[in-house]
């Protein structure tokens, strides 16, 4: 029973990693942009929720209603005004610019919110759990996070494969020059993709803020989990990203159950093993 418990806990934490990673995966899939500031954007969303809780006394989960549109609008502007100018000039400019953005965001958050560690309180939801078998219970909140991960990754997937906007985003990913010949404005499409990515990142950030401690410097470690989930799952495959997050989560849970000091390391080890055995990830997208 202990082992089942460990794996379930791993899957649940992995759902959060998958939410971290979904935005990264979307942006990479559409415009081959590697965003090194992604972790800091997650933390920025968490601090936005924190500020709204402080200022308006909202329930932490209600802040999602505000944080999602704010982050989406920020994403549209960020892509349009900054990141679009780094594209089409090779691999290095987006890396350097998003690395710089990462440092700037960390320092702005530090300036505004101080270096203190924060966490949002959920009250009763934090401690209530569901007994699924004798001696085996899972918290309602982690289940909620899992449901959110499946729901929002499913929604983005549906948007990509069932709407005209989604077809345009896939076309852009296939062949940028030709989408321009169709009369599509790639600068706008890229900005829409980043807005979508930051909307889901906002959800990830708020859900994280109520689950773990965070501070202005905790972005990069979130970025690492997000990256590992994307690469384990296979670049550009959203359901793969969900599976990738869970692989990292389960590896961490197993490592942690052997020795608490092994928790983080075990996740990275699992990532390295996947990279060696299946360099394109577990579910590589068919088009590459």
């Amino acid at each position: 029973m202990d082992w089942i418990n460990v794996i379930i806990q791993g899957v649940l934490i992995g759902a959060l990693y998958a939410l971290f990673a979904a935005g990264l995966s979307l942006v990479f899939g559409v415009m081959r942009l590697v965003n090194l500031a992604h972790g800091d954007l997650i933390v920025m969303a968490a601090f936005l929720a924190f500020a709204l809780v402080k200022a308006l006394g909202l329930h932490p989960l209600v802040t999602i209603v505000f944080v999602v549109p704010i982050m989406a609008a920020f994403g549209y502007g960020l892509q349009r005004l900054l990141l679009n100018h780094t594209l089409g000039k090779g691999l290095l400019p987006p890396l350097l610019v998003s690395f710089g953005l990462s440092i700037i965001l960390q320092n702005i958050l530090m300036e505004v919110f101080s270096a203190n560690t924060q966490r949002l309180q959920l009250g009763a939801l934090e401690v209530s759990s569901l007994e699924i078998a004798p001696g085996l219970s899972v918290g309602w909140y982690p289940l909620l996070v899992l449901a959110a991960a499946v729901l929002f990754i499913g929604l983005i997937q549906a948007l990509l494969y069932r709407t005209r906007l989604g077809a345009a985003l896939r076309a852009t990913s296939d062949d940028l020059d030709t989408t321009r010949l169709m009369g599509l404005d790639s600068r706008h499409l890229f900005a829409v993709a980043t807005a979508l990515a930051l909307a889901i990142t906002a959800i990830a950030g708020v859900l994280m803020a109520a689950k773990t401690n965070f501070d202005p410097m905790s972005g990069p470690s979130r970025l690492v989990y997000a990256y590992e989930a994307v690469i384990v799952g296979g670049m550009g495959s959203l359901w793969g990203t969900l599976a990738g997050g869970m692989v990292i989560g389960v590896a961490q849970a197993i490592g942690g159950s052997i020795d608490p000091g092994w928790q983080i390391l075990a996740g990275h080890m699992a990532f390295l093993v996947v990279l060696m055995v299946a360099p394109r990830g577990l579910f590589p997208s068919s088009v590459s």
Partner: protein
Amino acid sequence: MTLLSTHDLTAHYGDFQALFGIDLDVKAGEAVALVGANGAGKSTLLRALCGQLPVGSDQVHFDGQPVGGLRADRLVRLGLAMVPEGRRLFPSLTVEENLVMGAASKRPGPWNLKRIYDLFPVLKERRKVGATSLSGGQQQMVAIGRGLMSNPRLILCDEISLGLAPVIVKDVYAALPAVMAEGTAVVVVEQDIGQATRFAERFYCLCEGRVVLSGRCDAVDRDAIRQAYFGL
């Protein structure tokens, strides 16, 4: 009425000059062929016309306006469509999704999905399958249909017969009169002089980045074009 004209058009790839002072014009509703050997500059000329290469503003006029250097998506909205060489269909999209992408500019006009399926009935049967799983000729039909979906006033077709069996080429060209019947001008780029002159009213023959011969297809004999084609 002149729809498209170029004036001393030049184009470069880095230090390499590919076009040397091209002057040509296309009238509304006209069929024009650009012929020339491999490397003569035909595709470069088309890329310069549709906004894929940097050119001076006054070097290209469309509908009386200087349009040189405009972005490709702006030109499509003005009514200049391109069927690119090698078809360039979107592999992760279905046939129908590819066609719908062509309508992204939202220009009003006679062409819509139903009209495209009337023109190429085989595409209707296969509309749900991945575009690149079609045969070469059917893919070319998708590429032409996708260009028409923008309801262009001028459609540029780059080597639409390339790599297709002669009987399929006939099928593809058979669709073009229906396009012209809507008043759309058609420019075809061809390596095959016979194919080009059977279809078009006028031709321009390019050699080493220059127009070396031009005129009405019915007024010039095939040998004169052939000599110009090879730069003799």
